């Protein structure tokens, strides 16, 4: 670890904190339906869109209707993307003449992008046409993010409102998120990325007569990358235009583009804590939640950075030291321009939230570095989290923390004036349980089925288990990053991971909306001396504790058989 490395991390943090407050307050205005500075341009577009779609913007929905609208939209848009993939060979913008996508893969990919997972079982350069990438996939980058934010905002309304039967209008929330938040930010970020060297064209792939091997030309993949890259990061989608995602020089050419991409990933989720504070009328609570997230993020960055800086114990004749002329440490799967710092910062961030973009190969991380990225997803990606999904995931833990605090003092727990009762806790527990049940059961079946599960492995020994565990964790968490050595483009993995992604998204969103609807209709009780304050540092500590205990109790056994065992064996010189 170096002084410069820490400086890079601290600068990132300073910029994030400077930007999140104005954006968070702006988003509160957007979702409260107030005037913003973009109204003169966007208001007419918004009205036209409502008119064309038949949306009655002034009519609000109860939580059931909100959920139904969300599901219907997801099904329709999923089917459209499936269709586009299947018939891409007869659609335009396919200069490489790529064939239609095979059924299981098309299903997996459509589920993946609809659920904001962006798990990729395929090599994009050789599978997806420009049309599919733009219209099928980048489209979902916008919409899945907007849907996530809409659900989070509905939940915040549920917390803030008193004796209300409704929690907002799904179509309005989604539309306003796209028009007022995502699109303007993309139009700022995409040009900045192009300025750094991210490509943006519709040309066929380039053939280059390379300097030394002119006889065997290099084919260079092209495409409309920057427009997709901007929303891929901003919407915490993470689906790469190219196979190696943000490690590819055309997706992430410079250290500054790397900085921008990490910032874009974190910006909206961090700002949503400010939005939470503003809309719920307790900015102190927003900050308490932010503090908990910041703490967990920082620990993750530190652990990955420290672990990846360590030399491989079994190499001879190799200079692995960190020095002024080389980054040193574990360089397998990392790019020289980012070094250990830029990769650690990216990896911690992408797994703390549900982004899943990578700028280095997680599969080649040190065992403990890999364990930290995996654990980040296992904690539920609530550290800033996915756009929207992070905030509502965190609020589940908030409900649990308040509930546990209530049990400790023997009072009915309250959260911002609302009594937390049996229904709320049941729904929160449903949310907490669905996640590990899906992951652990499917991992176990894969491990027991050599033909289906184990034949896809790239690494043997405990690391093989970690590859499978990572795949299902990433899919259930809608993260989408991978221990990419696992060949997931098989019928078994395409189909099971496809269902895992849908479960991880919709089975978790619906309990969330139920809590929102139930909280909204409750009356508000004034705080009493027995009320546990949710804007204190004590609350931050309790919340962090609940997250770590739930996460550790659920996943520690699996982790001890995977990365921990691998680490111990490696230190004793055992390879597989």
């Amino acid at each position, binding site marked *: 670890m170096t002084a410069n490395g820490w400086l890079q991390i601290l600068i990132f943090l300073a910029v994030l904190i400077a930007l999140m407050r104005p954006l968070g307050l702006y988003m509160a205005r957007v979702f409260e339906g107030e005037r913003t500075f973009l109204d003169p341009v966007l208001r007419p577009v918004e009205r036209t869109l409502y008119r064309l779609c038949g949306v009655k913007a002034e009519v609000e929905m109860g939580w059931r209707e909100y959920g139904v609208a969300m599901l219907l939209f997801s099904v329709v848009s999923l089917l459209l993307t499936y269709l586009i993939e299947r018939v891409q060979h007869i659609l335009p913008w396919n200069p490489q003449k790529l064939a239609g996508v095979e059924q299981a893969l098309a299903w997996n990919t459509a589920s993946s992008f609809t659920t904001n997972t962006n798990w990729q079982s395929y090599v994009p*350069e050789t599978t997806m046409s420009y049309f599919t990438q733009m219209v099928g996939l980048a489209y979902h980058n916008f919409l899945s993010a907007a849907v996530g934010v809409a659900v989070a905002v509905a939940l915040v309304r549920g917390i803030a409102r008193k004796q209300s039967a409704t929690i907002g209008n799904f179509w309005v929330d989604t539309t306003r998120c796209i028009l007022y938040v995502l699109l303007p930010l993309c139009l700022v970020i995409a040009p900045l990325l192009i300025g750094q060297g991210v490509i943006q064209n519709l040309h066929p792939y380039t053939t280059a007569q*390379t300097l030394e091997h002119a006889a065997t030309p290099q084919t260079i993949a092209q495409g409309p990358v920057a427009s997709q890259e901007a929303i891929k990061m901003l919407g915490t989608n993470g689906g790469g235009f190219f196979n190696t995602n943000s490690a590819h020089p055309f997706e992430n050419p410079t250290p500054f583009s790397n900085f921008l991409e990490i910032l874009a990933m974190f910006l909206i989720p961090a700002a949503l804590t400010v939005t939470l504070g503003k809309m719920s009328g307790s900015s102190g609570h927003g900050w308490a939640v932010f503090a908990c997230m910041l703490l967990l993020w920082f620990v993750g960055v530190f652990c990955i950075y420290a672990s990846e800086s360590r030399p491989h114990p079994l190499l001879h004749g190799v200079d692995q030291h960190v020095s002024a002329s080389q980054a040193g440490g574990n360089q397998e799967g990392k790019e*020289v321009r980012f070094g250990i710092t830029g990769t650690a910062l990216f990896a911690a961030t992408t797994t703390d939230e549900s982004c899943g973009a990578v700028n280095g190969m997680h599969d080649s991380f040190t065992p403990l570095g890999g364990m930290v990225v995996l654990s980040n997803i296992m904690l539920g990606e609530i550290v800033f989290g996915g756009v929207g999904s992070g905030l509502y995931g965190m609020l589940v833990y908030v409900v649990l923390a308040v509930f546990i605090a209530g049990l400790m003092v023997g009072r009915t727990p309250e959260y911002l004036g609302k009594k937390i009762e049996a229904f709320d806790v049941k729904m929160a527990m449903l949310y907490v349980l669905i996640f590990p049940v899906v992951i652990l059961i499917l991992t176990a079946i894969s491990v027991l089925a050599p033909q289906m599960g184990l034949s896809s492995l790239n690494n043997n020994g405990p690391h093989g288990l970690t590859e499978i565990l990572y795949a299902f964790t990433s899919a259930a968490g809608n993260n989408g990053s991978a221990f990419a050595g696992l060949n997931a483009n098989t019928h078994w993995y395409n189909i099971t991971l496809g269902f895992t992604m849908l479960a991880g998204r919709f089975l978790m969103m619906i309990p969330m909306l139920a809590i929102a609807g139930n909280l909204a209709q409750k009356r508000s009780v004034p705080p009493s001396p027995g009320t546990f304050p949710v804007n204190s540092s004590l609350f931050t500590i309790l919340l962090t504790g609940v997250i770590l205990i739930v996460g550790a109790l659920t996943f520690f056994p699996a982790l001890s058989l995977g990365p921990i065992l691998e680490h111990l064996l490696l230190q004793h010189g055992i390879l597989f």
Partner: protein
Amino acid sequence: MTSNLKIAIRFTLITTVLLGIIYPLLVTAFAHLTMPSKADGQLIVRDGKVIGSEIIGQNFTGDTYFHSRPSAAGNGYDAANSSGSNYAQSNKKLVDRIQGDVATYQKTEPGKPVPIDLVTTSGSGLDPDISPAAALYQVHRVAMARHLSDASVETLVQTHMQGRQFGILGEPRVNVLELNLALDDAASQH
């Protein structure tokens, strides 16, 4: 339910046109008007032929050129098939591959430890850069093969070192293709 279904279908179609077609084409048009070279991938053209991209690595195997890092993309630096090795640290194939490459490098530099980035594959398999340490390590071999003095090749390496961006971000590096092009240019001037 049926009214929401109707809205869902219309909403999907209209937003698809807006976000899937208008938005990327707008960005493409902007890129081509303002930054055409960057939008097309910073291609290097020599004698009317494209010989590569400034920011995509190439394979170099001869002694007269500086070598890039090993690559797991296709058969090496396949820019239509980017890939990392995805080997775990506990994978015997990783350790064997690295030790094999180390042995090759140490033939010309006996006993001198090889900088780690020179014997590890990058994430993309297309890394255009090596660390300054990895470039300096190869100076002696390249100088011998080209019958130049170590000092003159080292000077060339020094002039092609890129510092951290804005003095802070990322890591110092040397673009291998640019360095090798400069080597060829220097040779043709003599």
